Protein backbone atom coordinates (compact mmCIF):
# COMPACT_ATOMS: atom_id res chain seq x y z
CA UNK A 1 0.00 0.00 0.00
CA UNK A 2 2.76 2.39 -0.85
CA UNK A 3 1.51 5.51 -2.63
CA UNK A 4 3.02 6.02 -6.04
CA UNK A 5 4.14 9.42 -4.93
CA UNK A 6 6.56 7.79 -2.51
CA UNK A 7 8.34 6.14 -5.37
CA UNK A 8 8.34 9.36 -7.23
CA UNK A 9 9.77 11.25 -4.34
CA UNK A 10 12.40 8.59 -3.90
CA UNK A 11 13.25 9.09 -7.55
CA UNK A 12 13.36 12.84 -7.01
CA UNK A 13 15.70 12.34 -4.08
CA UNK A 14 18.00 10.19 -6.14
CA UNK A 15 17.83 12.63 -9.03
CA UNK A 16 18.70 15.55 -6.81
CA UNK A 17 21.49 13.64 -5.17
CA UNK A 18 22.73 12.95 -8.67
CA UNK A 19 22.61 16.63 -9.48
CA UNK A 20 24.35 17.51 -6.22
CA UNK A 21 26.94 14.88 -6.85
CA UNK A 22 27.60 16.33 -10.31
CA UNK A 23 28.19 19.65 -8.60
CA UNK A 24 30.47 18.32 -5.91
CA UNK A 25 32.62 15.68 -7.48
CA UNK A 26 35.88 16.66 -9.08
CA UNK A 27 36.70 13.41 -10.78
CA UNK A 28 35.22 13.25 -14.22
CA UNK A 29 34.41 9.60 -13.91
CA UNK A 30 32.50 10.15 -10.72
CA UNK A 31 30.66 13.02 -12.32
CA UNK A 32 29.72 10.68 -15.11
CA UNK A 33 28.49 8.24 -12.47
CA UNK A 34 26.26 10.95 -11.04
CA UNK A 35 24.64 11.20 -14.41
CA UNK A 36 24.02 7.47 -14.33
CA UNK A 37 22.45 7.99 -10.94
CA UNK A 38 20.13 10.60 -12.38
CA UNK A 39 19.19 8.27 -15.20
CA UNK A 40 18.43 5.57 -12.69
CA UNK A 41 16.17 7.94 -10.84
CA UNK A 42 14.32 8.62 -14.03
CA UNK A 43 14.07 4.91 -14.67
CA UNK A 44 12.45 4.41 -11.31
CA UNK A 45 9.93 7.08 -12.21
CA UNK A 46 9.18 5.29 -15.46
CA UNK A 47 8.67 2.00 -13.77
CA UNK A 48 6.44 3.52 -11.14
CA UNK A 49 4.27 5.16 -13.77
CA UNK A 50 4.24 1.99 -15.83
CA UNK A 51 2.84 0.29 -12.83
CA UNK A 52 0.30 2.98 -12.27
CA UNK A 53 -0.93 3.05 -15.86
CA UNK A 54 -0.62 -0.69 -16.39
CA UNK A 55 1.37 0.20 -19.47
CA UNK A 56 4.36 -1.81 -20.46
CA UNK A 57 5.59 1.09 -22.54
CA UNK A 58 7.16 2.70 -19.51
CA UNK A 59 9.22 -0.39 -18.87
CA UNK A 60 10.34 -0.52 -22.45
CA UNK A 61 11.45 3.05 -22.14
CA UNK A 62 13.64 2.05 -19.21
CA UNK A 63 15.05 -0.68 -21.34
CA UNK A 64 16.00 1.85 -23.99
CA UNK A 65 17.49 4.14 -21.40
CA UNK A 66 19.75 1.30 -20.38
CA UNK A 67 20.86 0.82 -23.95
CA UNK A 68 21.50 4.48 -24.34
CA UNK A 69 23.34 4.60 -21.06
CA UNK A 70 25.57 1.83 -22.25
CA UNK A 71 26.30 3.62 -25.47
CA UNK A 72 26.96 6.85 -23.64
CA UNK A 73 29.22 5.08 -21.23
CA UNK A 74 31.27 3.71 -24.09
CA UNK A 75 31.64 7.07 -25.71
CA UNK A 76 31.97 9.00 -22.48
CA UNK A 77 34.69 6.84 -21.12
CA UNK A 78 36.48 7.06 -24.44
CA UNK A 79 36.35 10.82 -24.20
CA UNK A 80 37.61 10.64 -20.66
CA UNK A 81 40.52 8.56 -21.79
CA UNK A 82 41.23 11.00 -24.57
CA UNK A 83 41.23 13.94 -22.22
CA UNK A 84 43.39 12.12 -19.74
CA UNK A 85 45.89 11.63 -22.50
CA UNK A 86 46.16 15.31 -23.30
CA UNK A 87 45.86 16.72 -19.81
CA UNK A 88 47.06 13.96 -17.48
CA UNK A 89 44.32 14.76 -15.04
CA UNK A 90 40.76 13.81 -14.32
CA UNK A 91 40.01 16.79 -12.18
CA UNK A 92 37.36 18.94 -13.78
CA UNK A 93 38.55 22.03 -11.98
CA UNK A 94 41.66 21.84 -14.07
CA UNK A 95 39.86 21.45 -17.33
CA UNK A 96 39.05 25.08 -17.88
CA UNK A 97 41.23 26.28 -20.67
CA UNK A 98 38.33 28.03 -22.28
CA UNK A 99 36.58 30.62 -20.26
CA UNK A 100 35.02 34.06 -20.32
Amino acid at each position, binding site marked *: *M*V*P*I*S*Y*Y*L*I*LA*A*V*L*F*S*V*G*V*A*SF*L*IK*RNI*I*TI*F*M*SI*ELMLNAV*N*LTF*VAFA*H*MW*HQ*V*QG*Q*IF*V*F*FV*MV*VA*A*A*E*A*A*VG*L*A*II*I*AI*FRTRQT*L*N*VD*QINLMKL
Partner: protein
Amino acid sequence: MDLALFLIFGGLAVAAALNLLLQRHPINSALSLVVVMMSLAVLYWSLGAEFLAAAQVIVYSGAIMVLFVFTIMLLNAGEEERTHGSRAAYIVGFPGAAAIFCLLSFVFLTEGKALGTVSLGGYLDNAANNIAEISHVLFTSLLLPFEVTSVLILVAILGAVVLARKEQ
Protein backbone atom coordinates in the same frame (compact mmCIF):
# COMPACT_ATOMS: atom_id res chain seq x y z
CA MET B 1 5.12 -5.68 3.61
CA ASP B 2 5.48 -3.63 0.44
CA LEU B 3 5.97 -0.49 2.48
CA ALA B 4 8.70 -2.19 4.41
CA LEU B 5 10.30 -3.33 1.19
CA PHE B 6 10.09 0.19 -0.18
CA LEU B 7 11.52 1.70 2.97
CA ILE B 8 14.40 -0.71 3.23
CA PHE B 9 15.51 -0.62 -0.36
CA GLY B 10 14.57 2.96 -0.91
CA GLY B 11 16.57 3.88 2.12
CA LEU B 12 19.44 1.75 0.97
CA ALA B 13 19.39 3.45 -2.44
CA VAL B 14 19.42 6.90 -0.91
CA ALA B 15 22.15 5.96 1.51
CA ALA B 16 24.25 4.47 -1.26
CA ALA B 17 23.65 7.54 -3.41
CA LEU B 18 24.81 9.76 -0.60
CA ASN B 19 27.79 7.54 -0.13
CA LEU B 20 28.61 7.96 -3.80
CA LEU B 21 28.53 11.64 -3.20
CA LEU B 22 30.62 11.56 -0.09
CA GLN B 23 33.28 9.04 -1.02
CA ARG B 24 36.45 10.45 -2.35
CA HIS B 25 37.75 7.50 -4.21
CA PRO B 26 36.05 6.81 -7.49
CA ILE B 27 36.07 3.07 -6.88
CA ASN B 28 34.06 3.54 -3.73
CA SER B 29 31.68 5.76 -5.55
CA ALA B 30 31.31 3.20 -8.27
CA LEU B 31 30.55 0.49 -5.79
CA SER B 32 28.01 2.72 -4.09
CA LEU B 33 26.38 3.23 -7.43
CA VAL B 34 26.17 -0.51 -7.86
CA VAL B 35 24.37 -0.70 -4.54
CA VAL B 36 21.92 1.93 -5.68
CA MET B 37 21.24 -0.03 -8.81
CA MET B 38 20.76 -3.24 -6.95
CA SER B 39 18.31 -1.64 -4.59
CA LEU B 40 16.46 -0.16 -7.49
CA ALA B 41 16.29 -3.57 -9.11
CA VAL B 42 14.45 -4.76 -6.06
CA LEU B 43 12.06 -1.89 -6.26
CA TYR B 44 11.49 -2.61 -9.95
CA TRP B 45 10.63 -6.07 -9.03
CA SER B 46 8.24 -4.84 -6.40
CA LEU B 47 6.60 -2.71 -9.06
CA GLY B 48 6.08 -5.71 -11.25
CA ALA B 49 8.90 -5.19 -13.66
CA GLU B 50 10.67 -8.47 -13.36
CA PHE B 51 12.41 -8.20 -16.69
CA LEU B 52 13.77 -4.78 -15.89
CA ALA B 53 14.91 -5.91 -12.49
CA ALA B 54 16.98 -8.56 -14.17
CA ALA B 55 18.22 -6.24 -16.84
CA GLN B 56 19.16 -3.69 -14.25
CA VAL B 57 21.37 -6.17 -12.51
CA ILE B 58 22.84 -7.67 -15.64
CA VAL B 59 23.18 -4.70 -17.91
CA TYR B 60 23.58 -1.80 -15.59
CA SER B 61 25.45 -3.06 -12.61
CA GLY B 62 26.95 -5.84 -14.61
CA ALA B 63 28.10 -4.35 -17.87
CA ILE B 64 28.05 -0.59 -17.54
CA MET B 65 29.48 -0.36 -14.06
CA VAL B 66 32.17 -2.80 -14.95
CA LEU B 67 33.11 -0.46 -17.75
CA PHE B 68 33.38 2.34 -15.24
CA VAL B 69 35.51 0.37 -12.88
CA PHE B 70 37.61 -0.72 -15.76
CA THR B 71 38.25 2.87 -16.77
CA ILE B 72 39.04 3.86 -13.23
CA MET B 73 41.56 1.12 -13.09
CA LEU B 74 42.92 1.92 -16.50
CA LEU B 75 43.50 5.56 -15.70
CA ASN B 76 44.65 4.68 -12.24
CA ALA B 77 42.41 7.35 -10.82
CA GLY B 78 43.21 8.08 -7.24
CA GLU B 79 41.38 9.96 -4.56
CA GLU B 80 40.09 13.19 -5.81
CA GLU B 81 41.58 16.41 -4.51
CA ARG B 82 39.12 18.87 -3.12
CA THR B 83 40.09 21.67 -5.42
CA HIS B 84 38.15 24.88 -5.39
CA GLY B 85 37.53 25.59 -8.98
CA SER B 86 33.95 26.55 -8.74
CA ARG B 87 32.12 28.78 -6.39
CA ALA B 88 29.07 28.89 -8.61
CA ALA B 89 28.50 25.20 -8.05
CA TYR B 90 27.90 25.88 -4.40
CA ILE B 91 26.34 29.31 -4.57
CA VAL B 92 23.86 28.67 -7.32
CA GLY B 93 24.08 24.94 -7.92
CA PHE B 94 23.05 23.63 -4.51
CA PRO B 95 20.12 25.94 -4.12
CA GLY B 96 19.18 24.89 -7.60
CA ALA B 97 19.40 21.22 -6.84
CA ALA B 98 17.53 21.67 -3.61
CA ALA B 99 14.88 23.70 -5.37
CA ILE B 100 14.49 21.01 -8.01
CA PHE B 101 13.96 18.42 -5.33
CA CYS B 102 11.50 20.58 -3.43
CA LEU B 103 9.56 21.47 -6.52
CA LEU B 104 9.32 17.91 -7.74
CA SER B 105 8.32 16.65 -4.33
CA PHE B 106 5.80 19.41 -4.09
CA VAL B 107 4.31 18.37 -7.39
CA PHE B 108 4.24 14.69 -6.47
CA LEU B 109 2.68 15.39 -3.12
CA THR B 110 -0.01 17.67 -4.48
CA GLU B 111 -0.81 15.16 -7.17
CA GLY B 112 -0.38 12.27 -4.71
CA LYS B 113 -4.07 11.55 -4.37
CA ALA B 114 -4.65 11.31 -8.07
CA LEU B 115 -1.66 9.11 -8.55
CA GLY B 116 -2.93 6.32 -6.35
CA THR B 117 -0.96 3.56 -4.72
CA VAL B 118 1.07 0.57 -5.62
CA SER B 119 0.17 -3.04 -5.13
CA LEU B 120 2.88 -5.52 -4.69
CA GLY B 121 3.68 -7.76 -7.58
CA GLY B 122 2.54 -7.74 -11.16
CA TYR B 123 -0.15 -5.42 -12.21
CA LEU B 124 -1.17 -7.40 -15.20
CA ASP B 125 -4.38 -8.95 -14.03
CA ASN B 126 -4.60 -11.35 -16.87
CA ALA B 127 -1.47 -12.94 -15.49
CA ALA B 128 0.35 -12.53 -18.76
CA ASN B 129 4.07 -12.80 -18.58
CA ASN B 130 5.90 -9.53 -18.14
CA ILE B 131 8.59 -10.53 -20.55
CA ALA B 132 6.11 -11.67 -23.13
CA GLU B 133 4.26 -8.41 -22.86
CA ILE B 134 7.44 -6.41 -23.29
CA SER B 135 8.66 -8.38 -26.20
CA HIS B 136 5.30 -8.13 -27.89
CA VAL B 137 5.28 -4.38 -27.73
CA LEU B 138 8.97 -4.13 -28.52
CA PHE B 139 8.68 -6.07 -31.73
CA THR B 140 5.46 -4.58 -32.97
CA SER B 141 4.64 -1.03 -32.16
CA LEU B 142 8.12 -0.09 -30.95
CA LEU B 143 10.01 -2.02 -33.54
CA LEU B 144 11.53 1.04 -35.13
CA PRO B 145 13.21 2.39 -32.01
CA PHE B 146 14.57 -1.02 -31.37
CA GLU B 147 16.06 -1.21 -34.82
CA VAL B 148 17.36 2.32 -34.69
CA THR B 149 19.19 1.50 -31.52
CA SER B 150 21.59 -0.37 -33.74
CA VAL B 151 22.60 2.87 -35.36
CA LEU B 152 23.11 4.31 -31.92
CA ILE B 153 25.37 1.53 -30.91
CA LEU B 154 27.19 1.75 -34.20
CA VAL B 155 27.88 5.39 -33.54
CA ALA B 156 29.01 4.61 -30.02
CA ILE B 157 31.45 2.01 -31.26
CA LEU B 158 32.69 4.31 -33.92
CA GLY B 159 33.15 7.06 -31.38
CA ALA B 160 34.93 4.88 -28.90
CA VAL B 161 37.30 3.75 -31.59
CA VAL B 162 37.96 7.22 -32.87
CA LEU B 163 38.44 8.78 -29.50
CA ALA B 164 40.34 6.16 -27.69
CA ARG B 165 42.69 5.24 -30.46
CA LYS B 166 46.02 6.91 -30.22
CA GLU B 167 47.04 9.29 -32.97
CA GLN B 168 49.67 7.82 -35.21
